[in-house]
């Protein structure tokens, strides 16, 4: 049996049996929704409908209803796009990278984090689509022979790379998530007492029976998908950053963008996982499985990625000065002292200064503080994208074109609306899907569970006799 060092803290608290784990995780699915869930669902639906309304209004009236102008042609739309894609990255990082590194603490949080990834990438994908203005022409990004002559899409353009990257990322994450869900759906199917439930989960379980060969393939597929998803997640945000980096706009034309964006994405994604998991574990009583240690591990990732982001900000500043290119220097001087200095300093405080509070063990194991910090980081990372996008372009090469960006109610409405749509998806996930990969959690019970962890071999064998 695999043993773990005794100084490592247990990842499953208490003494649950295998069926206790099933019962506790499936409790929400097998029972009627609670009042709190209904209330949240109503609020989220109202916000989502408002968002859908704003999107329909935008499609009807046109991009002119946003605050964009001739100089600032990209603002909240692309900020929101990059923000949402970035949030998505934590899910894949937890389920793929941590799988490759055999980090057992991923088990309890990979499912909700992957769900977050998928819904966040949905929201992200929405923005470039509606930014096209005529969304019904969205199929023009596909390389299909068209009626306008045989002019193809431009494969040299990072914007097209983005189309391939985001769609690959979304569909591969979806497959990865679903393959993990199948065995858990089978458990629900085999326990279901209500006919509708049995039918629905039976359909979704694809006839999974859990025989040895299927499990062998399951593990191999998970490993290979993790191996594929790891470079994928790095490539996706690198490509997103190239949307900016390959242009010749001072402030965007920077070679450190790919690693800097990837670190920022993981940083913001983990903050969002914290925001969601802290609520979920409390409301759904999953404290046994998502322990303080899990929260602490995620906070450690936040310190690391936050520091990488901080180094990137400072490098950017230094290089803009050191390069001697006056346009580049101006872009950065303008960032920290121009009309958008408030956004820059907000970003600096939230992303560079605040994560370092987590060096204190007391703070990073404090749930209320972690929750507060996760919100701060989310805000900071939104401002990071806003600063990069808007401050770089609002000062054109031609001073007569200098302008500012003011969001309209449609800009704000759509952003708030995507938060609502995301919450609706997430609440549905919490109610109808197994929130934890509970069958995977069972595999770490004996190596990392509190009950078994520091048991001697003799005690273990006494508890689990084999031969009579």
């Amino acid at each position, binding site marked *: 049996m695999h043993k773990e060092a005794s100084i490592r803290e247990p990842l499953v608290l208490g003494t649950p049996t295998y*069926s206790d784990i099933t019962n506790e995780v499936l409790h929400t699915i097998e029972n009627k929704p609670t009042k709190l869930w209904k209330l949240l669902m109503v609020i989220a639906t109202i916000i989502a409908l408002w968002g859908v309304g704003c999107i329909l209004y935008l499609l009807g009236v046109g991009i002119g209803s946003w605050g964009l102008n001739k100089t600032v042609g990209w603002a909240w739309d692309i900020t929101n796009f990059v923000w949402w894609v970035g949030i998505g990255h934590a899910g894949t990082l937890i389920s793929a990278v941590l799988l490759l590194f055999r980090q057992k603490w991923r088990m309890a949080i990979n499912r909700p984090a992957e769900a977050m990834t998928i819904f966040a990438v949905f929201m992200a994908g929405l923005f470039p689509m509606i930014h096209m203005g005529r969304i019904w022409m969205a199929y023009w990004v596909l390389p299909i022979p068209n009626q306008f002559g045989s002019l*193809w899409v431009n494969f*040299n353009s*990072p914007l097209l790379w983005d189309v391939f990257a985001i769609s690959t990322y979304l569909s591969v994450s979806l497959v990865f998530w679903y393959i993990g869900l199948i065995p858990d759906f089978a458990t629900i199917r*085999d326990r279901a007492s209500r006919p509708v439930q049995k039918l629905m989960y039976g359909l979704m379980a694809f006839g999974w029976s859990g025989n040895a060969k299927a499990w062998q*393939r399951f593990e191999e597929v998970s490993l290979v998908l993790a191996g594929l998803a790891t470079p994928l997640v790095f490539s996706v945000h690198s490509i997103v950053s190239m949307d900016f980096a390959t242009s010749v706009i001072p402030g965007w034309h920077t070679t450190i963008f790919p690693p800097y964006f990837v670190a920022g994405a993981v940083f913001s994604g983990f903050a969002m996982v914290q925001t969601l998991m802290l609520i979920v574990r409390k409301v759904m009583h999953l404290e046994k499985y998502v322990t303080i240690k899990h929260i602490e591990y995620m906070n450690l990732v936040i310190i690391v990625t936050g520091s990488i982001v901080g180094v990137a900000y400072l490098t950017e500043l230094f290089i803009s000065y050191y390069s001697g290119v006056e346009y580049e220097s101006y872009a950065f001087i303008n960032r920290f002292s121009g009309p958008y200095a408030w956004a820059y300093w907000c970003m600096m405080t939230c992303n560079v200064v605040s994560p370092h509070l987590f060096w204190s063990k007391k703070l990073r194991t404090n749930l209320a503080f972690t929750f507060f910090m996760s919100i701060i980081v989310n805000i900071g990372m939104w401002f990071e994208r806003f600063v990069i996008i808007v401050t770089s372009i609002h000062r054109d090469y031609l001073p007569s074109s200098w302008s500012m960006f003011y969001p309209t109610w449609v800009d704000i409405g759509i952003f708030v609306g995507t938060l609502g749509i995301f919450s609706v998806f997430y609440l549905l996930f919490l109610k109808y899907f197994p929130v934890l990969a509970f069958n995977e959690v069972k595999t770490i019970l004996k190596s990392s569970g509190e009950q078994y962890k520091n048991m001697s071999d003799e005690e273990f064998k006494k508890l689990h006799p084999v031969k*009579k």
Partner: protein
Amino acid sequence: MSDKTIYAIYDDDYVLLESAKHIVDKGIHIRDVFSPFPIHGLDPVIGLKRTRIAIAAFIYGMIGVSLALTGMWFFMIHDWPMNIGGKPNFSLMNNLPTFVPITFEFGVLCAAHGMAITYMLRNWTLPGMKGRNPYPRTTDDRFVMEIHTHDNDMDEEGIKALLNETYVLEIDVKNP
């Protein structure tokens, strides 16, 4: 003599694994094992070969890479060479760097989806199928060995006696 199926039900993965080792040592062939989660170390005991699905994924990936490169060569170099920003598209070799991202993405797309489809088909798990696990609790907290009398020289009673040497929870025999 008709083939009888013997199901030995255990309540723990470790106990099942050790019991499987014990009865395999006595020359019994275990047809299959049903469990709620993968039991590490079981495959060699019951004689399962390693799956070749990773090799399949590699082949799908290579197909994706070649398709992407062929496609981009056709679109950008052969069919309609575009001159973008003074950087013309004359040959695949010279333009290869800008084709790397999509080649990679498409390779991953094909590898992941090809492998997922192969996985579904090889497991024979597709939408709308019924579960083939013998007992509903094998997806919760029961671990079951399936032994067939036809696979073994021993008769039903002999196998049962062997199984009873281990801490088996229950033995269930099904006639065809």
